[in-house]
């Protein structure tokens, strides 16, 4: 093996195949976004170095399978000219997934791709006790399955009822998917149970009088989710965060917490099962307060 190919192998991102001497080359993709030029380069690389096929992974990743050992450095160099890097494996922060968010999707509340880029820039490939995944959904529809990730993020809209204009028509309660709203015409109140609210904003959009307005709009974080052999769903942490800066501060402190508390090869969800979620919450709250 040539020294350059050996060096590439050591860095990771080249997945050894069943077939001796062949590797599936994992690429560095953020939020599933690629330019047409990058896609073309990936196709060319697959033909030139692999066997003309590309594999799309479960988390918006792209791999070029069947690359022989002696082409590993060359495929990396070839793709590098279009800004497509080689991916990572092992105990690191992995691909950050995202939907197209509020710039494209009519339901979008947050700019998911932009946030994915920010998380990727700071954390992609960084060492942690075990693999660590971040997934971002632009709204409560949660197409990107936030709860499956070590950190999941969702766009979130929380309603606030302002009595005056309300006609007690009951529409908000009828549309609420989590039955979090109770309309009591006799007492002239509409109560929203924020603990049950899933942040979809449907009540606000449907209210004919605008009595149901927006309380908070922002980012909701989940921690400790994973799939694989023993799946765990991430749990909601913190209050609603209002800016990408606050989210980044929170992600930073979650990773810091995991590095301090997590054992080697222990997924974050399992760490949280040992430490409990309150320990994480208080650590992050401290950090966010310091940074703002």
């Amino acid at each position: 093996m040539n020294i350059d190919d050996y060096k590439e192998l050591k860095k990771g991102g080249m997945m050894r195949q069943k077939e001796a001497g062949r590797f599936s080359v994992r690429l560095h993709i953020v939020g599933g976004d690629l330019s047409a030029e990058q896609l073309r380069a990936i196709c060319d690389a697959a033909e030139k170095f692999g066997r003309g096929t590309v594999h799309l992974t479960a988390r918006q990743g792209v791999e070029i399978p069947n690359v022989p050992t002696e082409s590993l450095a060359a495929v990396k160099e070839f793709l590098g000219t279009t800004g497509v890097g080689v991916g990572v494996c092992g105990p690191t922060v992995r691909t950050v997934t995202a939907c197209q968010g509020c710039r494209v999707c009519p339901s979008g509340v947050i700019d998911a791709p932009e946030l994915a880029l920010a998380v990727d820039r700071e954390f992609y490939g960084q060492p942690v006790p075990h693999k660590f995944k971040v997934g971002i959904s632009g709204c409560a529809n949660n197409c990107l399955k936030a709860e499956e990730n070590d950190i999941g993020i969702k766009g979130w809209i929380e309603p606030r009822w302002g009595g005056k204009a309300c006609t007690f028509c009951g529409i908000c309660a009828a549309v609420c998917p989590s039955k979090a709203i109770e309309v009591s015409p006799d007492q002239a109140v509409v109560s929203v149970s924020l603990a049950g609210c899933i942040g979809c904003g449907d009540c606000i959009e449907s209210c004919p009088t605008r009595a149901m307005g927006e309380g908070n709009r922002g980012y909701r974080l989940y921690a400790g989710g994973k799939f694989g052999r023993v799946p765990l769903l991430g749990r909601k942490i913190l209050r609603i965060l209002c800016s990408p800066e606050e989210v980044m501060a929170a992600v930073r402190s979650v990773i810091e917490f995991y590095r301090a508390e997590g054992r080697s090869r222990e997924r974050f969800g399992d760490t949280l099962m040992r430490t409990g979620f309150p320990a994480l919450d208080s650590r992050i709250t401290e950090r966010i307060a310091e940074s703002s």
Partner: protein
Amino acid sequence: MIPTLDITKDVCPMTFVKVKMGLAKIPPAGKLNVLLAEDALKNVISSLKQEGHRVSGVSRQESAFLIVVEKEGERP
């Protein structure tokens, strides 16, 4: 008499398409009653609001809702 449009049997996006067609037949600031199923409430009302119309009345019927839609614009 306010005309009534029954869209309880329709599904999105036909629900809103029919409401738009109904509104096209009445003058600006005119009223249209729409009878619709609970599932259609959110999409129909939010689309109406987006296009500048008003929902000025709501009542719950047996298994549906009756809303009163006021078309946008000035009375001719």
